[in-house]
């Protein structure tokens, strides 16, 4: 047992992190195993190489990023204690934390940052390659300073918002020899985080145990974290109820179960702690289909779908109508709801379609469209069915083309073999990281989640390019407002629903959800009540 004084110091800090939480009044209990629902098996667990929630859930406890987010979603020190940027946005200096060691005992230095940034973030990491495209070098004047040099201006806000997800550091001494992709440490990660990797049994579980040498003294509280691979939603819900699982992150349960467990006093179903992980349900139009290239048809389609009804009856309290590609939780860039919107108006939809020259034919059908829904997420399935049902009423017969993940990506983003497509747009802290690529023309064929719709607008391309390198945060925000207005007017794709991922906690977990990307975060202060 540690002395009471030390615990009290922590409690002060913890209380600051958790706004208005009665939980913080209790003294953290040491020990215990946190069992976590792991719904999608991962090829690798190294977040420096793969940016996805499935990796963060595990790797984020073992490896750490330069920058983290605080409770309010502001960049907070992690492996970097502080940072400053040159006014031209081309140089960013990070002062690294001292006294941090890797799990194998080697010290953490700027060389690790340099290596990870140049070899992993810039070359391999998805989204990272985009963000760090103009990174020319990382200078290491001393072991605790890393200076990032950019060819073009890199807005500090963009960089800091990107780094919590795209700034995980890997140990150079492990990865410098051999092929980085094949390195065994990708599936048995070595980091600086509060938990040390123990084992990964494919199809069954991953285990990590407490790192006694963690740089945050006295932390973590948990003895172990165990991720159980449960691919079946219903089975996972059953295990939550049986207490075999204590936490199910990222909306991995069925919508019905998330709502049901939310009503159970033992559990909490909440979007809290996921504010940094927002997604939109999309509707994407293939402009190579002349019918859809007509903006009246696109607008008619949007007007024909009763989004509030869908949200109320199918998605429940975890979703709300979206107002554009930048979601409302993005406090820095959200332009407000006063952008062009497409409310449910079937009559208007019919009128627009008539105007576009698509009269109803036999059986009241105007024309047929194929809809490719992405195969992930129950809500996508419900949404695609709802689109089918809704457009049917407007005289558009929709055939759903069911494909698995590979087939979906190939047919939509490579073969352009679709009329409508629907999936998720996941917003990652900054529009330049995750969003504008959906609209910017000139993406090479085959790149998923980019503009493969055949849509081109030079004015919008210009806004996107300017915003990406605009160093002044105020101007940047304005540029993105212009962007949202433009794309909501032209409607190259439609993002009518905004959803925050849902976490389901067993209430025994304390300090849960105390930052905007909690499921991905380190859990150094998480503890289990008895």
């Amino acid at each position: 047992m540690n002395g009471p004084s030390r615990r009290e110091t922590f409690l002060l800090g913890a209380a600051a992190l958790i706004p208005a939480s009665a939980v913080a009044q209790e003294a953290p209990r040491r020990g215990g195993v946190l069992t976590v629902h792991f719904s999608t098996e991962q090829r690798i667990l190294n977040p420096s190489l793969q940016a996805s929630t499935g990796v963060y859930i595990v790797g984020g406890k073992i490896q750490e990023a330069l920058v983290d987010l605080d409770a309010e979603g502001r960049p907070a020190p992690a492996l970097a204690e502080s940072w400053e940027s040159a006014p031209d946005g081309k140089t960013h200096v990070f002062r690294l934390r001292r006294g941090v060691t890797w799990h194998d005992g080697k010290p953490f230095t700027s060389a690790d940052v340099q290596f990870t940034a140049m070899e992993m973030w810039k070359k391999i990491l998805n989204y990272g390659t985009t963000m760090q495209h103009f990174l020319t070098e990382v200078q290491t004047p001393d072991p605790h300073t890393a200076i990032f040099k950019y060819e073009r201006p890199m807005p500090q806000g963009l960089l800091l918002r990107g780094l919590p997800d795209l700034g995980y550091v890997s140990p150079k001494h492990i990865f410098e020899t051999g092929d980085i992709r094949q390195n065994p440490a990708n599936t048995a990660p070595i980091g600086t985080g509060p938990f040390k990797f123990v084992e990964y049994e494919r199809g069954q579980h991953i285990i990590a145990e407490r790192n006694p040498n963690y740089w945050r003294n006295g932390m973590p509280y948990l003895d172990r974290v165990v991720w159980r691979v449960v691919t079946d939603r219903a089975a996972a819900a059953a295990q939550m109820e049986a207490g075999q699982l204590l936490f199910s992150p990222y909306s991995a349960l069925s919508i019905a179960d998330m709502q049901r467990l939310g009503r159970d006093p033992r559990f909490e179903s909440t979007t809290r702690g996921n504010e940094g992980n927002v997604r939109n349900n999309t509707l994407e139009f293939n402009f190579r289909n002349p019918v859809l290239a007509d903006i009246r048809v696109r607008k008619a389609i949007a007007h024909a779908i009763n989004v509030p009804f869908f949200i109320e009856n199918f998605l429940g309290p975890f979703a709300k109508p979206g107002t554009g590609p930048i979601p409302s939780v993005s406090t820095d860039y959200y332009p407000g709801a006063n952008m062009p919107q497409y409310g449910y108006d079937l009559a208007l939809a019919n009128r627009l379609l008539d105007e576009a020259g698509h009269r109803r034919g036999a059986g009241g059908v105007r024309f047929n469209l194929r809809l490719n829904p992405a195969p992930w997420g129950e809500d996508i399935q419900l949404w695609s069915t709802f689109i089918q049902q809704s457009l049917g009423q407007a005289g558009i017969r929709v055939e759903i083309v069911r494909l698995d993940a590979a087939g979906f990506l190939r047919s939509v983003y490579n073969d352009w073999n679709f009329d409508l497509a629907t999936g998720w747009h996941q917003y990652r802290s900054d529009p330049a990281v995750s969003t504008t690529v959906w609209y910017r023309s000139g993406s090479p064929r085959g790149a998923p989640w980019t503009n493969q719709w055949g849509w081109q607008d030079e004015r919008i391309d210009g806004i996107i390019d300017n915003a990406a390198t605009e160093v002044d945060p105020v101007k940047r925000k304005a540029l993105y407002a212009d962007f949202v207005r433009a794309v909501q007017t032209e409607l190259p794709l439609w993002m009518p629903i905004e959803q925050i991922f849902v976490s389901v906690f067993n209430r025994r977990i304390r300090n849960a959800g105390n930052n905007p990307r909690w499921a991905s975060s380190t859990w150094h202060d998480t503890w289990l009540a008895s």
Partner: protein
Amino acid sequence: MRVLRLALWRLAASLPTLLLILVGMFLLLQLAPGDTVDALMAQMGGGDARMAEEMRRFYGLDLGIAARLGQYLMRLVTLDLGFSAIYGKPVATVILERLPPTLLLMAASLSFAFFFGLLFGVVAARRVNKWPDTLISMLGLVFYATPSFWFGLMAIVLFSVYLQWLPAGGFGDITQNYTGFAAMLDIARHLVLPTLTLGLIFLAIYLRIMRASMLEVLSLDFVRTARAKGLSETRVVAKHVLRNAMLPMVTLIGLQAGTMLGGSVVVESVFALPGLGRLAYESVVQRDLNTLLGIVFVSALLVIAINFVVDILYARLDPRISAES
């Protein structure tokens, strides 16, 4: 010695079959929309085209079909199943990890179906056209008609959700660090429902076959001989009929090994078992060609092995066979 020779002969005879399957599967999968890299991108949730291109080169997907097929077969000769793109491990390792649950499940289901099929079949045939027969035959029909995944779901609702007797899925409770007997018991508890689910249809089939086979054998001349010898009905059935009547059932095991393996895809999916069937489903969806071909290879071997065991069993049961070879 003879058994070994028979085994080798079996294997040699099934080599063309194996080759046919692997090459056919390889070519078939080339027609699939999307490849491993697409699936990987989906798993990552994003990435750019340059990265995709590099990954394709890394996994050798930029080569021609013939070249890749050649490479694959060459490696196979050295019993190297290749490297799984999705799992980032050698395919052999991935499959070995997933094999035990499937083998356990199949063995348990087979034993369950065989034992009860035998029992019910005998009872039904002994009481032919009386109420036990009618009841058993009805049950057999209903079991046969029950979609296994549906039965699994309903069993979960009843036994896991409402009664809370049995776990709803998984292969073991890893939050408890069971060892030894407790671990076995834990796995057994987890396997009860999957075993019932997978075994049900086979129980129905075995039951029907056993009943028909019993009736068939009961009508044979040597049974009349046995009765004419003044043997009791019990002895007639136990000593003379049963073994003869079991022969078609034994044959059936071999014929249905593949079907059972296929059924485990669904059952493992219902009960979230980390087995081969589930892996097969995942690798089809993930376009993990190497893993899938590995599974095909292993399951074909498994089917061949089961058939081999069945052959030996059959030969042990029926002296006429051993005399022939």
